[in-house]
């Protein structure tokens, strides 16, 4: 009763940003997409560019992203969002264009479109959600699945001989001259959300500079696909995903961050076991 008493408009200190619609999100409880959507929408709201923004949605868990953002949105074929964004931006250079893709979309089927859009230095913002798995189709191996990590198509764990190595596409893209800002963030704690939002803001502000791609990876958990509780998934992500996908800026103002070892390859990190 006491809680309900304080639910009054004048007591609201945190509300849904107006750039998100009222549609109910379909994401699993514990998924990072909802938070990632929210901070992208907050950035659009705070920059006052709702009427100047075109979003490009992927195929994957966030295929319906266009229902949640109250901005004009194009739905791409699987992996093709950077190609759509290329033309949308070149034909509308005064608008803000962003893509929103998962790891299967951006780093497997759409690798060519991703690399070439980045290499051309398209003046767009790319949001990349990396959860190491194909969420929507039921938890199959992604290009980013860790060595030893179980999925529906690697039931005994990802095996180097059979499946090759996890693709650190964000580091790869940072080496291209067409990327201007590359950062990897997460949204699993309040502090992380603030940093991720700052990176996204930077990515959108950079479009005014016309200096190339701003690429923000959000390393995110998929507790459904990983078959864990949300709390377990966040812990597992910190212990296993972050050593392979270190959090922080990788390229700022067109220059690689010196402290980042772009060539570092982690293949023997032992996976922690969920208890």
């Amino acid at each position, binding site marked *: 009763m006491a809680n309900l008493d304080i639910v009054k408009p004048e007591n609201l200190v945190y509300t849904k940003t107006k750039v998100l*619609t009222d549609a109910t999100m379909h994401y699993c409880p514990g998924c990072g997409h909802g938070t990632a959507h929210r901070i992208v929408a907050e950035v659009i709201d705070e920059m006052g560019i*709702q*009427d*100047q*923004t*075109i979003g*490009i*949605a992927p195929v994957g868990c966030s*295929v*319906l992203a*266009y*229902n949640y*953002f*109250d*901005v*004009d*949105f*194009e*739905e*791409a*074929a699987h992996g*093709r969002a950077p*190609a*759509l*964004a*290329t*033309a*949308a931006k*070149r*034909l*509308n250079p005064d*608008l803000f264009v962003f893509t929103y893709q998962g790891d299967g979309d951006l780093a497997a089927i759409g690798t*060519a*479109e991703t690399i*070439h859009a980045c290499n051309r230095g398209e003046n767009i913002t790319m949001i990349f959600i990396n959860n190491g798995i194909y969420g929507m189709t039921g938890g199959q191996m992604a290009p980013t699945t860790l060595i030893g990590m179980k999925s529906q198509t690697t039931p005994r764990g990802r095996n180097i001989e059979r499946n090759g190595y996890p693709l650190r596409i964000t580091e790869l893209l940072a080496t291209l001259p067409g990327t201007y800002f590359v950062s990897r963030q997460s949204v699993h704690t309040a502090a992380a959300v603030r940093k991720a939002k700052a990176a996204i803001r930077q990515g959108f502000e950079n479009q005014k500079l016309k200096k190339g791609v701003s690429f923000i990876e959000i390393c995110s958990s998929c507790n459904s696909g990983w078959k864990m509780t949300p709390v377990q998934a966040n812990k597992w992500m910190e212990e296993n995903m972050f050593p392979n996908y270190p959090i922080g800026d990788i390229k700022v103002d067109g220059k690689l961050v010196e402290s980042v070892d772009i060539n570092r390859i982690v293949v023997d990190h032992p996976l922690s076991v969920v208890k």
Partner: protein
Amino acid sequence: MAKELKLMKGNEAVARAMIASGADGYFGYPITPQSEVMETLMAEQPWETTGMVVLQAESELASINMVYGGAATGKKVATSSSSPGISLMQEGFTYLAGAEIPCVIMNAMRGGPGLGTIQPAQSDYFQSVKGGGHGDYQLYTIAPASVQEMYDFVFDAWDIAFKYRIPVLILTDGAIGQCMEKCMTRDYIPRWTEEERRANAPWACWGKPASRGHNIVTSLELESSRQEAFNQKLQAKYRTMEENEVKYEAINCDDADYIFVAYGTSSRIAMKAMQLGREKGLKIGLLRLITLFPFPKKKVAELAKQAKGMLCVEMSAGQMIEDVKLAAECKVPIEHYGRYGGMIPTPEDVLAAMEKQIINK
């Protein structure tokens, strides 16, 4: 850009027509026998004059998806390719059709399957009008038979594309793309202003003002009943086009006992064969198909009642003939004559085939 009579290749005519008709963008990938389209655009540098964007993509897959991305903002966007590249683009075609995005695509067909040959062919008819990609969809498919038509059909294509919100396929072949003929160019039609873009494409993504909800350009509908309703809407659109947008040319058909049915390069050869036949006293006519979808069903049916036989002339193993037979309801003998794999028949071959397969059979 003004009206003038110039000698040019078919591919060049397409490029010049894009600029003159106020296209906003072209996204392509080089492939023989149509690379002159992008080469002409790059040489003309329309971004310096009309503001048209021209970009060489990393693949046909990327270029057709760039067409999607640009055309979904309500801009006039085009691409071109040839058979193997067009196969790669099929993903884009079905998404464009599913999202009802107007755009213009040119296919200068070459022989297949696979890498096949770089010489002219008409073996992509099925792929073009029977749905090369997945799902129930059609492209408005129009077949020029001269350099002049390559030029003129680009102008017509924009009107159809935006009137019906449909991708338009200009289906030609390497012969028409590569041959040089005289072409009367037109005065420049300015690219749309921002206001015109918004008026002509109120459904598109151009930045959501407070006065409307967000525009979503998508081909996804997870609710089956709504997807079926959408499919029905598409089919209704196609039926409307079958009523209103069929184009053909019936030449010497009024008194004809025997009729060639052909399109594009084949129709030009059949035209000469018809003239040779008439000189021999044979009452031969030519039904030259201009739209392949919508298919000129009624005209074929009408001629089938009058003629004693029809010969379908195609640079393929026999594809268009299926639609001719369906439309004619087997009321007269209908035979196929074709050369393929990059071979082009002579008028003498075509007339001999008419005599052997139809007239003297």
